[in-house]
């Protein structure tokens, strides 16, 4: 009872007596007496004295209520709320602010509600969750960079976000070591009761130091922004370059890797670069080359062969070149050397050809698979280390259906996070854990302007349904827009997409490039 005076209380109770009359006198009482409800005009007029009685009774009850409430409060002081934080809350520390880590934190918040007996801390090197499926569109200047990133502190309401890089994990002492910042001499430590490892993956250059030094990475927002600015800078340089060979070198872009990331980036770069030519009258379309180098016999190995063929054909029509069954053997700042032997004169090599779990895992001293991912149980707990969990790209989670492990994709990471959060809460509340099971819903890949490939799995039969072209592209946009975290981000991206329909893509350079 929050009304704070007798007057409020009288009028509130008198007002609510009117619907009470309509329910009890007109419906419940006649029905209990074996009569039809008295909700007709005649019935309501006959029951009018009861309405007056209800309103007056309501007023009387309302007049007495504050006194009764005060009396009760005097006799029985209000107990402390159940959700009052305990003296020592259970500390959950999540390491990694990608899909897996962020979604785990969100799911924990939802599952715990107002229960403050558990504290959640998320340690992340980035201050935002990057929506990687749209990263290629940032590199291709279709979407403003920040629109596909959701700030962790805005999205998470009760989770403490710590921006730091993890230096090490002491599983015995149950604490993690955060790398010292500039100016700090000593590392900081964070104690935990439950640790969730969601460290993600890093690019794998397979020990090729030259390539690591020369190639541009394509994993973060900064990488996408850097690629976009690099392309703009090279166009500006090519515009004033009189030597044909030098100009072609500047306008040749090599993408290593023909998986989702590589193909989507190549498609976006191809559209961006060829679309920009209109502003550079001295440059010719034939001088622009976007080349995908892929080690296997077909691109997009995650999709069905027919879709891969479709992607290859459509992208070739739009000017993308492919080198299949070919590896990048070496690279300099001006050339990319391939195996079988070929040298491509280019200032641009973007690496999407391989990933490996975060190197921090090597220091943990826990079991890892061939890929380097931490071996976990079906519940995602690490065997032999109570309260330590792992998920996402850095975890090898057993798939009881296929007998292998679940693939390191965002789609799986999101589901794993929800399951892990449930298990973690169950573990805190000493309830039984459940094993993670999930069947992929399908995969989608944009290969160029209004063109995509989609492979959707029928939920009942498991049969794959294939889509390509504009419809698949619309599916891609609809599905990923719905998956983009945060309503505000959805609106911003939608506005970007609509703007792109009517206006040219933005070619403003936002990072200054060296004039070399």
């Amino acid at each position, binding site marked *: 009872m929050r009304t704070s005076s007798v*007057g409020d209380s009288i009028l509130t109770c008198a*007002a*609510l007596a*009117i619907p009470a009359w*309509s329910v009890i006198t007109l419906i419940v009482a006649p029905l209990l007496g074996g009569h039809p409800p008295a909700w007709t*005009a005649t019935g309501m007029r006959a029951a*009018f004295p009861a309405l*007056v009685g209800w309103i007056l009774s309501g*007023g009387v009850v309302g007049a007495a209520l504050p006194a009764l409430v005060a009396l009760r409060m005097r006799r029985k002081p209000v107990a402390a709320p159940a959700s009052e934080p305990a003296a020592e809350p259970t500390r959950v520390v999540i390491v990694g602010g990608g899909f897996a880590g962020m979604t785990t934190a969100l799911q924990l918040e939802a599952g715990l509600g107002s229960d403050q007996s558990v504290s959640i801390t998320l340690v992340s090197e980035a201050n935002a969750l990057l929506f990687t499926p749209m990263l290629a569109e940032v590199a291709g200047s279709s979407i403003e960079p920040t629109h596909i990133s959701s700030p962790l502190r805005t999205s998470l*309401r009760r989770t403490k976000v710590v921006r730091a890089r993890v230096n090490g994990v002491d599983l015995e002492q149950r604490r993690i070591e955060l790398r010292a910042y500039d100016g700090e001499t000593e590392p900081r430590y964070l104690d935990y009761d439950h640790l969730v490892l969601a460290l993600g993956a890093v690019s794998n250059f397979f020990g090729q130091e030259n390539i690591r030094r020369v190639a541009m990475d394509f994993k973060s927002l900064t990488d996408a922004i850097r690629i976009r600015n690099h392309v703009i800078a090279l166009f500006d340089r090519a515009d004033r370059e009189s030597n044909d060979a030098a100009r072609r070198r500047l306008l040749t872009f090599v993408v290593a890797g023909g998986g989702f990331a590589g193909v989507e980036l190549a498609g976006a770069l191809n559209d961006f670069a060829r679309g920009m030519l209109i502003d550079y009258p001295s440059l010719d379309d034939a001088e622009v080359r976007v080349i995908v180098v892929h080690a296997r016999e077909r691109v997009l190995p995650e999709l069905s062969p027919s879709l891969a063929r479709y992607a290859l054909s459509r992208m070739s029509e739009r000017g993308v070149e492919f080198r299949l069954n070919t590896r990048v053997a070496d690279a300099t700042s001006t050339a990319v050397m391939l195996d079988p032997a070929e040298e491509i004169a280019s200032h641009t090599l973007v690496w999407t050809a391989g990933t490996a779990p975060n190197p921090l895992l090597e220091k943990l001293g826990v079991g890892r698979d061939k890929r380097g991912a931490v071996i976990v149980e079906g519940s995602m707990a690490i065997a032999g280390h109570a309260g330590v969990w792992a998920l996402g790209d850095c975890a090898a989670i057993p798939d009881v259906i296929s007998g292998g492990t679940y693939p390191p994709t965002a789609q799986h990471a999101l589901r794993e996070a929800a399951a892990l959060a449930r298990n973690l809460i169950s573990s805190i509340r000493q309830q039984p854990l459940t094993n993670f099971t999930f069947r992929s819903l399908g995969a989608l890949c944009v290969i160029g302007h209004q063109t995509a490939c989609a492979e959707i799995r029928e939920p009942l039969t498991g049969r794959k349904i294939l889509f390509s072209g504009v419809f698949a592209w619309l599916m891609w946009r609809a599905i990923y827009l719905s998956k983009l975290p945060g309503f505000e981000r959805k609106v911003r991206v939608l506005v970007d997409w609509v703007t792109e329909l009517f206006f040219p893509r933005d070619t403003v350079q936002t990072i200054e490039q060296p004039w070399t």
Partner: protein
Amino acid sequence: MDVVHSRRLVAGVLGGLVGAAIVGVLPSGETLSPFALALAGIACGGIFAALLGTRALGPGSSLVWALGYGFLVWIVCCAFVSLGGHSDDLRMPMIDVVRSRFALLVAIVLASVVVGISVGFAALDERLEARRFHFARAVCAGGFAGVFGGWAFGKWMEQAGFFPLIAGLVRSDSVSVGVSLHFTIAIVIGASFGLLFQREISGLGSSLTWGAAYGIVWWFAGALTFLPLLLGKEPDLTYTHAAALFGSLVGHIVYGLIVGLLYAMVDGTWLWLFERSDPLNRAAEGSGTIALSSLWRGGLASVVGALLFSIVMLQTGTLTRVAQIAHGTTIFEGFVVHLVIAAIIGASYGVLFHYEVLDDLSAAGWGAVYGLIWWFLGPLTLFPILIGGSFTWTTAAADAQLPSLIGHLIYGIALGLVFRDLERRHLARLFVDERLKRRWMRRQRPIGTPAPALWLFFLGTGVVLPIILG
């Protein structure tokens, strides 16, 4: 006793005296001597000022408090007359006693207006600093809202041939003069709504309901009292005459709803553009996200109420009529259409009332009020239009829709309570952070606003008038 409280008390007593004079002057059927009437007026005004005067933040809130209080006084009078009055009254069924005391209701409402506004002005200085008041904004936004409200009300006046009667105010019988006068009055009343309620309006929902209550007040004051007086006739305050003007009552309510909603939208847009868009004041989730999530929760919350309401509709055989909106004929089609409409109304409730609901009681109060609003807007107004006919604001049409009135009340209460529960769960998570809680609380309707009086006056008159006038 402080100065302001004394001033409120004096204003209440004087307002009560003026109110007693109104009761005495109008043909209210009251047989008390002038002295007894004056004493009753002083007592009622004084009790009001003592009991509820501290809640009068300004003339608007004080007016609403007084209306709720006045309605309760009228119910007490009816009960008193029915139980211990004249022998004639004792022999009559209570509905007839109440009908015979309809003129007293008119007089009490007018007296409440005087008492409420006078106490409100007496209390104004105390709170003036706390609430900024923009005269021009109140007049412009209110007048703007009045134009649209007047347009909707004008549809009924055109249908009922009322414009020549209005033109009689300037000794004319021209329709165009009547239309011009009607819009002028609509603008003036709209502007007065802004002047009275600007300090109180915190959300669309409360403004909508205040507008409806204000419309009812103007039915009592305008159509029943001042219009005949200005036309040089004695006001006919019998219930039969009021029943003949039932269409005008619904028209005033629809006018008030539009004025209340539009005023709050214009006023809210101003606040949103120049105050709430300030990053220092913004809600953590952003108004777009809050509106969308309220839409979703409102739509979801409507399910329980819609199912309960559908039982009433099934029993009264109205589901097949509802199916006609989608050119259907079966009960199932009617049920689907009903669920869709209920979801849309539920979603609108979420957007309109998400800052108004404080606890379960207020959830039930606002829900019942919103359900009643949709009885006037739905079966009496929009439904006949949607099935290709014209609205009929008559007591006969209202009589036929009385079962639906009960269904709307049940739907509204269920909607309000379920929405409150969904909102509570959402906010529990948000409020773990005290800063977010503080920001939300700043926007929420504070305790002590005249919402209880509004519920009683609107629910009371909204339910009682269709029953006694039929």
